């Protein structure tokens, strides 16, 4: 029996160590989460306002000819930008968004090309033999819009020259520390009503119907010039917002996962301590029984 208590003791110690690690990771994730959540909440009004502004303008202007607004029906490929984390240990965060994106890819009638932001998604796509055209590192705590400008330039370029029919972005929308939802958004062509999905804040302040806004706009210098600046910027902002949402979600998911792991470790230690005490008690009882048994045998002799 002595062996058994030794083994249990060893396990308790090892789980104790694991618990320390998960607790530390939880703390780190919590700090990062706070930063990321602040960033995402702060940038939502901007993303929402610029979206509302563009959609309002598009609906009243016959400017549908802009290359970023026109669907490319003749193109043969669809691009999906998959936003995942760099590392694992964040519960179902990565697998949820990946399965959501794969479902979209299965439904697509055309070939799908993948762009990955974050190592986890990149490795997964490479492993499963998907057509991965570009991989971007995901900064841990974000970020400025200039960091994603390369990606934006690449996809808008390929879209405008007719390589891609549509560009989607798969990211995880941040609702709260407990709830994050995988989401697919059409990035290009820019489409009215394709959005309204910038998290709960975006939905809460959904655009008022344009009834009172029924008037003509003056453009300075010209609609073309304004839109040539505005639309590419909007694409950047959309993607930027998606990245912020994903980052906030990732750190929240990781914090929760680590919290659960810490709790599970504590439970296991409790169970094992109980088992350890029982084993120790049993060993003592048996030793006493053996001693008394031996004594009785001696007396009988």
């Amino acid at each position, binding site marked *: 029996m002595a062996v058994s208590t030794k083994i249990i003791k060893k396990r308790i110690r090892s789980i104790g160590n694991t618990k320390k690690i998960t607790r530390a990771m939880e703390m780190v994730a919590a700090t990062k989460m706070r930063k990321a959540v602040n960033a995402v909440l*702060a*940038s939502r009004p*901007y993303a929402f306002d610029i979206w509302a502004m563009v959609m309002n303008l598009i609906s009243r202007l016959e400017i549908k000819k802009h290359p970023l607004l026109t669907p490319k029906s003749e193109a043969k490929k669809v691009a999906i930008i998959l936003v995942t984390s760099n590392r694992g240990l964040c519960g179902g965060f990565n697998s949820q968004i990946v399965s959501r994106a794969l479902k979209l890819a299965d439904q697509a009638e055309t070939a799908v090309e993948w762009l990955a932001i974050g190592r986890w998604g990149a490795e997964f796509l490479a492993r499963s033999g998907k057509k991965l055209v570009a991989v971007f590192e995901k900064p841990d705590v974000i970020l400025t819009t200039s960091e994603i400008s390369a990606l934006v330039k690449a996809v808008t370029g390929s879209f405008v020259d007719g390589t891609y029919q549509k560009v989607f972005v798969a990211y995880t929308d941040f609702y709260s520390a407990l709830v994050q939802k995988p989401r697919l958004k059409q990035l290009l062509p820019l489409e009215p009503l394709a959005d309204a999905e910038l998290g709960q804040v975006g939905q809460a302040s959904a655009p008022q119907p344009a009834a*009172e806004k029924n008037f003509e*706009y003056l453009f*300075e210098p010209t609609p073309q010039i304004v839109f040539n*600046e505005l639309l590419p910027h909007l694409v950047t902002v959309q993607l930027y917002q998606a990245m912020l949402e994903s980052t906030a979600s990732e750190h929240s998911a990781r914090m929760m996962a680590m919290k659960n792991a810490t709790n599970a470790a504590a439970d296991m230690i409790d169970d094992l301590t109980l088992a350890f005490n029982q084993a120790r008690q049993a060993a003592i009882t048996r030793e006493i029984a053996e001693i008394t048994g031996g004594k009785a045998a001696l007396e009988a002799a």
Partner: protein
Amino acid sequence: MPKIKFKIVTPERLVYQKDVDQVTLPTKTGEITVLPNHIPLVALLAAGELVAKVDGQELPMAVSRGFIEVGKNSVTVLTQTAEGVEEIDELRAQAAVERAKKLLQDVKNKEAVEYTALAGKIEKELARLKVVRRRKHTHQPTIKSE
């Protein structure tokens, strides 16, 4: 006279939201002042000084490039950065200009992208400097403990 619903938003935060009497904005084609009942307008914001007037009080801000939407008695400014005078540190703004100019010299022959990015930065920093120089000393003679 109705007021104008005025709002400045940047990717980092909602900088300012208030009802004002008039707003003067720098645009790509020159400075404009928006008074109540202005015709709806969409314009490109240039880096420079933006002044909002509330009850005779002027509120100057340094802004960088962005977009302006003037609706029915509403003005929404979407820009990369916007700072009030008291937020700008003159010495740091000056240093930033110098730094960017120096970088620009080195980069000039390299990539066009980098060049425009830097040029934009200088534009922005100069705007900040201009605002702070014009406003800080005349309007708010605050003594700073260094």
